[in-house]
């Protein structure tokens, strides 16, 4: 069995002062009224597993006011739980300071490297705001793709970060040339650097889009219908002619003061029956495509690592019809571990709930049948 989370404790995280929640393999349903902390709990699971939040760019928001730090502790069960191989993973965070990550009380460099080494959990998250991956700007789709590949390969993450820095340097150089502050003697050097790093990014993406598109296609088939769905990659400059394209764009780039070709200008196309979902998809199709992208990410991780990531899906049921809800509930139940939030337990069948863990949330207090005694064993 793939790694999964047995227990989680949150201290000063969003609206939780100090709360403990036990999780089971398979489906876990978080239920509660609006604004009780369901999304915060899902966010906390992701934070505990990866050391960062997928929800916001201003991370200091996760610290409960007026506390000065937030902390998550989780117990990860590795392999077959029968063997009792369990790790304690903790994340301590005070805004402005380096995060303190520990695995079994030993300081860890990053949690993704532990996950890569099979001692942590990977996650695939869904928040309603993720609709922008389908609907939004190309940068949202690039972020989806780069984020997925970065968690799997640190060298890819590094190439993406270095590429961004090299493009920044080139852009500044272009502006300096335009404003007469630089002779432009080093433009060739920065072009070479940009192409070198950009090629690594392009190669990583090119290798991923094929299989990821297939996974997206089968997820859409299950969620939407028989129409063929897939992915395409739209290059601002093709891999073979990248260097030439960058050289050709030089004059125009100097004028604009920005680099007009390269992976930072590309787009990931999401197609349904040959139609571009971003431009022409209906609201319903776009919603289902967002879900399908998350399912595809799960399959991609599973394919690349042999391990099933933990699924963290926020309020995913409310927008769906009965047939699709049923499909999703089974999908989650059959996964290694899924944590799903909802306002309405009736979205799930009684029989299914009897095989799942139900976690009730009210005003930052957590209760579930198995730990109603409130024991804190994390």
């Amino acid at each position, binding site marked *: 069995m793939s790694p999964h989370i047995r227990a989680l404790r949150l201290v000063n995280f969003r609206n939780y002062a100090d709360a403990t929640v036990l999780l089971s393999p398979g489906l876990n349903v978080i239920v509660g009224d609006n604004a009780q902390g369901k999304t915060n709990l899902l966010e906390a699971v992701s934070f505990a597993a990866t050391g960062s939040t997928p929800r916001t760019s201003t991370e200091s928001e996760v610290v409960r006011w007026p506390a000065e730090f937030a902390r998550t502790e989780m117990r990860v069960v590795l392999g077959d739980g029968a063997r009792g191989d369990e790790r304690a993973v903790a994340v301590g965070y005070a805004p402005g300071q380096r995060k303190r990550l520990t695995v079994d009380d030993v300081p860890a*460099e990053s949690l993704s490297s532990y996950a890569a080494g099979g001692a942590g959990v990977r996650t695939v998250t869904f928040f309603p705001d993720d609709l922008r991956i389908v609907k939004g700007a190309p940068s949202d789709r690039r972020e989806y793709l780069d984020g997925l590949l970065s968690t799997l390969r*640190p*060298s890819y993450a590094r190439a993406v970060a270095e590429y961004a820095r*090299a493009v920044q*340097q080139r852009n500044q150089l272009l502006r300096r040339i335009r404003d007469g502050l*630089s002779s432009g003697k080093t433009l060739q*050097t*920065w072009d070479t650097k940009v192409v070198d790093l950009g090629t690594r990014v392009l190669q990583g993406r090119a290798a991923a889009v094929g299989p990821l598109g297939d996974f997206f296609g089968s997820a859409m088939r299950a969620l939407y219908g028989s129409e063929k769905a897939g992915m395409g990659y739209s290059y601002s400059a093709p891999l073979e002619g990248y260097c030439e394209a960058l050289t050709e764009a030089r004059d125009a780039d100097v004028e604009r003061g920005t680099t007009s070709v390269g992976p930072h200008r590309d787009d990931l196309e999401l197609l349904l029956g040959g139609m571009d979902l971003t431009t022409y998809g209906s609201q319903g199709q776009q919603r289902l495509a967002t879900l399908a992208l998350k399912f595809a990410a799960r399959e991609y991780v599973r394919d690349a690592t042999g391990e099933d990531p933990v699924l963290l899906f926020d309020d995913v049921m409310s927008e769906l019809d009965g047939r699709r809800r049923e499909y999703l509930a089974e999908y989650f139940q059959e996964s290694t571990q899924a944590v799903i939030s909802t306002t309405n337990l009736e979205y799930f069948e009684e029989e299914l709930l009897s095989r799942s863990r139900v976690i009730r949330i009210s005003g930052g207090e957590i209760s579930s049948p198995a730990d109603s005694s409130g024991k804190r064993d994390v």
Partner: protein
Amino acid sequence: MATYARPVERLITELSRLPSIGPKSAQRIAFHVVRGRPEEAYGLAEALKEVKDRIRPCKRCFNLTEEEECEICRDSRRDAAVICAVEDPYDIGSIERTGEYRGLYHVLGGSLSPLDGIEPEDLRIAELVERVKGEGTEEIVVATNPNTTGEATAMYIAQEVQELGVRVTVLASGLPVGGDLEYADEVTLGRAFAGRRQL
């Protein structure tokens, strides 16, 4: 109103201008000086003055020296056919401590970075090219930092001396020796993997 007497405040302010010294450290050092023996403080003051009065860049390699040329440039036992280009004078110390290198140096004075407004003219690259022409250099070892700007600087130097028939090499990057593979960060290990060699 200042917390301490004005001279103490001034010392703290001056100290906290130094790199990697924050206000707390500055205060601790200042009080150490205040409590300590006068000779120690005068010794420090003199050392600071001396370094500003007497140290200048070597006219050949721009290492720091009291003379026209630095000790390394004047040492006839060193191999004048090889020049190791570094960003800062203190990089020389790091390389010297390896005991592996017997050639000369060239201090560039930083790395190319348009974001910081640093162009080739701001570095001593033209001086390096002149040296290669005049000294019959056979190899330049570019030992800039292994980051974006350091690597771009190395590439630019290679391009500038392309027609002079000099070999340009860069340092390998890889695993720290004597350490455990387990503790290497993934990027370093990934690079080491990409640069593996046959036994």
